[in-house]
């Protein structure tokens, strides 16, 4: 497991103490983050991606091979269908569309009338599959036929920031994809065809206020490209994996962590997404959120540690695991897969 906190040694030289103690911060502010529900089953079906973005907490790239077996996908679907309290299936990756059974999973979940969200990076429509070379140009058709909600990364309404974070050419391909999705009816206020964009800062700073940035995105994308969308979510960069390594290379990890800690917002903490979801990894293990998954912090309740042992009641009794990275979800107006939380 990756070392979670910057640690200092106490006088005896043995006991490590964290500089960025999230549990202590919650205690100091009297904030309770016990589970509220399991509304959402978030499933990370593959680490394979057509991109290798600077901020990616999954460390996804075209070279990754981890992917969920059909058996585990079926088990996720079985759990999804077994309890009406689970309303949403949130499929993520990597680029989940690159998984050979992605479309099967979507169709089966929709047959159950579950709300399906896809973490769609926009460019996967245009890039050939990294392993098979197959085209995904029919993805907008597939999405529209299955009435899934799309949650798509778009770090800025201009090329410079977007390509800086996600790679050269990404902005142009993303714009093309957004136009294709608009042509299918996405992003025009139809609740069956919701298109959300996700902004995260291109560097070690906090995101702007969500509603203000949404206005700016709406105007710029409409004026320059005749593109519309439904919601903009602003997300804080998580100080783990690839982004953390970049911070350390620039000798700014401590500064970034201090920025997050100083911006701690108890209201945002109360609204953290881990209170109403669970996250399943490609190998079927269960976590409190996608970030804990990437840090291999499996749920505390060992009797529900895999999707094969799913037990709603037992998961509601679990203690959500926290680490220094959790300050990323509680800074300013908060951050989650659905944007601000406060």
């Amino acid at each position, binding site marked *: 497991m990756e070392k979670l906190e910057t640690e200092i040694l106490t006088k005896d030289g043995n006991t490590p103490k964290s500089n960025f103690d999230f549990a202590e911060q919650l205690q100091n502010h009297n904030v309770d983050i016990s589970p509220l529900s399991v509304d959402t089953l978030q499933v990370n079906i593959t680490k394979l991606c057509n991109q290798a973005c600077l901020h990616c907490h999954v460390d996804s790239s075209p070279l990754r091979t981890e992917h969920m077996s059909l058996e585990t996908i079926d088990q996720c679907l079985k759990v999804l269908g077994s309890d009406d309290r689970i309303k949403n299936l949130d499929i993520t990756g990597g680029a989940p569309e690159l998984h050979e059974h992605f479309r099967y999973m979507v169709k089966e979940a929709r047959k159950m009338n579950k709300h399906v969200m896809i973490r769609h990076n926009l460019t996967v429509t245009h890039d050939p599959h990294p392993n098979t070379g197959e085209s995904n140009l029919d993805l907008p058709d597939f999405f529209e036929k299955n009435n899934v909600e799309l949650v798509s990364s778009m770090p*800025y309404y201009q090329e410079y920031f977007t390509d800086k974070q996600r790679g050269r050419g990404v902005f142009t391909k993303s714009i093309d994809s957004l136009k294709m999705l608009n042509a299918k009816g996405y992003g025009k206020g139809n609740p069956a065809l919701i298109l959300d964009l996700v902004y995260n800062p291109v560097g070690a*700073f906090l995101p*702007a206020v969500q509603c203000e940035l949404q206005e700016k995105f709406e105007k710029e994308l409409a004026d320059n490209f005749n593109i519309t969308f439904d919601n903009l979510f602003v997300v804080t960069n998580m100080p783990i994996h690839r982004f953390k390594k970049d911070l350390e290379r620039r000798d700014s990890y401590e500064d970034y962590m201090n920025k997050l800690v100083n911006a701690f917002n108890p209201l945002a903490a109360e609204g953290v997404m881990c209170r109403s979801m669970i996250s399943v990894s490609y190998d079927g293990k269960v976590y409190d959120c996608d970030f804990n998954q990437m840090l291999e912090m499996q749920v505390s309740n060992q009797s529900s540690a895999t999707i094969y042992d799913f037990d709603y009641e037992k998961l509601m009794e679990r203690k959500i695991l926290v680490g220094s990275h959790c300050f990323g979800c509680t800074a300013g107006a908060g951050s989650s897969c659905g944007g601000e939380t406060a």
Partner: protein
Amino acid sequence: MNYYESKDLGKFADVGRFKKDLMDKFFDYYNSVLNAEGSLTKREKALIALAVAHSKQCPYCIDAYTTSCLEHGSNPDEMTEAIHVAAAMDAGIDLVHGVQMLNQFDKLGV
């Protein structure tokens, strides 16, 4: 060790170690102007502050308002244009004093 250290910005409030009441008044004024929405948005104010920071060449303010502009959603084009405004104003202020030089030419019969 440099004369200006970035981390020293964190000691700004220490200037109130003596005559604290004056420093408190300054911070009240500063926060009322810069950290509140008014007729100008906070985003617009941050861009103005960035331009002034460059014109006055304050390293602390350049660090702080570069970050602040980004955190208010501004982009490098807008921020660079803001410091060009400061630079153009500085150049104009220098050059307009050429009128004084010309006045002196006239006085000296040059």
